C-alpha cells in the first residue's frame, strides 16, 4: 500500500510559494508599472484586511457567505444523495431522469440569477437557491453512477450472509459508494463557494461577493483585493476540511488501489 507520511501539518513548501508570489506582487507594485489605482500594493491590501476585520464587516460577510453555502450545499446533499441512490438502483429511473439531470448540470447556475431575484428577491434565499442548483445535479449524477458501478459480487455476498432490506443500504450500498461520494462533495463544495460570490455580487446586500462589488463601486481596490484574498483562503480551508473525510479508515480503499 502507498502510505504517505503524515500530511496533517502544512509542509514548508506550501508556505514558501505564496510568500514568493506576494514578494513578486510587491516588487511589481512598487515599480509602478501600473497606476496604483489599478494595481494595489500588498501592504495596502493587508491593511484593508486588517481594517475590515476590526470593523467586523469582513467577519459578518464571511459568516453570511458561509451560511448560504452551508444551507444550499447541505440541501443539495440531503436531496441529491437519495435521488442518486434511486437513479443508481433503477435503470428505468435513469432512462427517465438522466437527460434532465445532464441538462440542468450543463446549465450554468449563474444563468438562474435573474429568475432567482425575480422569484426570491434579494438576500439569503436567491443565493441558497443558486448554490443548490450548482451542487444538486452533479451530486445526483455522481451518486447514481457510483451506485450503478457497485460490483454485483458485493450484493451476492450480502445475500449469502443474510443481509437484506434496509440493512443492504447501510451495510453495502452506502459504504461502497462512500469514497466516490466524498470526492463529489469536495468538488461540489468548491463549486458552491464559487457560486455564492457571483450570487452575492448581484443579489446580495452582504456577503463576501457583495464586499467585492461594494469595494469596486467605491473604487477601493485595496478592499476589493482584500475580499478576494479572504474568499480564496476560506475556499481552500473548506477543501482542507473536506479532505479530512478521505482519512476515515473505512473509505481509504477507494483512494489507495
Amino acid at each position, binding site marked *: *500500500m502507498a502510505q504517505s507520511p503524515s500530511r496533517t501539518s502544512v509542509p514548508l513548501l506550501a508556505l514558501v510559494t505564496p510568500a514568493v508570489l506576494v514578494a513578486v506582487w510587491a516588487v511589481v507594485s512598487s515599480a509602478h508599472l501600473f497606476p496604483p489605482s489599478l494595481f494595489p500594493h500588498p501592504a495596502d491590501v493587508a491593511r484593508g484586511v486588517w481594517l475590515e476585520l476590526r470593523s467586523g464587516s469582513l467577519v459578518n460577510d464571511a459568516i453570511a457567505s458561509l451560511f448560504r453555502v452551508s444551507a444550499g450545499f447541505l440541501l443539495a446533499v440531503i436531496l441529491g444523495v437519495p435521488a442518486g441512490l434511486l437513479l443508481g438502483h433503477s435503470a428505468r429511473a435513469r432512462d427517465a431522469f438522466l437527460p434532465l439531470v445532464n441538462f440542468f448540470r450543463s446549465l450554468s447556475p449563474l444563468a438562474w440569477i435573474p429568475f432567482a431575484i425575480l422569484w426570491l428577491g434579494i438576500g439569503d434565499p436567491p443565493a441558497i437557491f443558486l448554490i443548490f442548483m450548482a451542487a444538486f445535479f452533479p451530486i445526483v449524477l455522481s451518486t447514481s453512477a457510483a451506485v450503478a458501478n457497485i460490483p454485483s459480487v458485493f450484493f451476492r455476498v450480502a445475500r449469502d450472509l443474510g443481509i437484506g432490506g434496509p440493512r443492504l443500504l447501510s451495510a453495502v450500498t452506502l459504504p461502497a459508494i462512500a469514497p466516490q461520494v466524498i470526492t463529489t462533495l469536495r468538488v461540489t463544495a468548491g463549486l458552491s463557494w464559487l457560486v455564492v460570490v457571483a450570487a452575492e455580487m448581484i443579489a446580495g446586500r452582504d456577503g463576501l461577493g457583495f464586499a467585492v462589488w461594494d469595494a469596486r463601486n467605491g473604487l477601493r481596490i485595496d478592499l476589493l483585493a482584500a475580499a478576494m484574498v479572504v474568499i480564496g483562503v476560506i475556499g481552500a480551508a473548506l477543501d482542507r476540511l473536506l479532505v479530512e473525510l478521505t482519512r476515515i479508515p473505512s473509505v481509504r480503499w477507494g483512494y489507495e488501489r
Partner: protein
Amino acid sequence: MSAAQLLRLESVTVAFGAVEVLSGIDLEVRDGEFVALVGPSGCGKTTLLNVCSGWLSPSTGSVHRPAGLRMVFQQDGLFPWLTVDENILLGLSQVPDRREQRERADALLDLIGLTAFAGAYPHQLSGGMRQRVELARALGGETPLLLMDEPFSSLDYLARLKMRWELTRILREQPRTVVLVTHDIEEAAQLADRVLVLSERPARVRDEVVLEMPRPRDPTHPEVVSAVHRILTVLGLESDVESGRSSR
C-alpha cells in the same frame, strides 16, 4: 434424495434467450465430497455453479440443495470498507451470542494464520491472504456446502499451489462438501474426489474422473498427472494419446 446426497441437479437446462448454456445436466454431490467442475472457458461452468447456489433458476429441470450454503468468489468478494476481522465477523452473523461470535472469529483467524492482520483492510493484503479471509468468512456460516467459483484464479502459480495446500489443511480442520469450478485442471486433479469434465457450450458432462488417493496430493504425483492427462485428452488438448494412460 437419499440421506448421503447433499446436492442434486436433475436434467437441468439453462437458456438465456435463444442461447442454451447448460443442456440436460445431472449432478449428484454426496455429503463430504469434493467435486470439481472443469471445462473450456465460456462453457457454462459458472452458470452451473449459480444454479447450484440458487442465484440462477434453471429453465427446466430440478435442483435439490441444502438449506444453507456459502459461496467463495473469484474476484474480490471481501467488503473493502471492513477490516479482516469485521469481514469474518459478518460471516458469523448467524451466531446469536456475541462472545461466541468473538471466539469463533478468533479461531478462524488462527486457522487461516492471519491473526496479526485482523485489523488490516483487504487492500492492504496480498491476493492469497484475501482469498484465505474470504474462505474463513464462508466457513463461518457453518453451512454443509461450499461453492467455490475459481477462487484462486487471480493468484500467481506459486501462490495457487500454496492455497491448494492451505485449502486441504483447512478442510481437514473444518470438513465441508465442496463444489469447485475451475479452469485449472491441475488444481482440480490435486483437490477433488471427482472431476466432472464439461463440454463446450451448451455444457454437458463429458467425462467423470474419480481420484481416490488422499489429500494433500503433490501436483507431480502419478495419479494427479494421469488425471490431468485424461482430462486434457477429453478436452482435445493432448496429442500424445498413449493407451493405458488415458483410460482407467
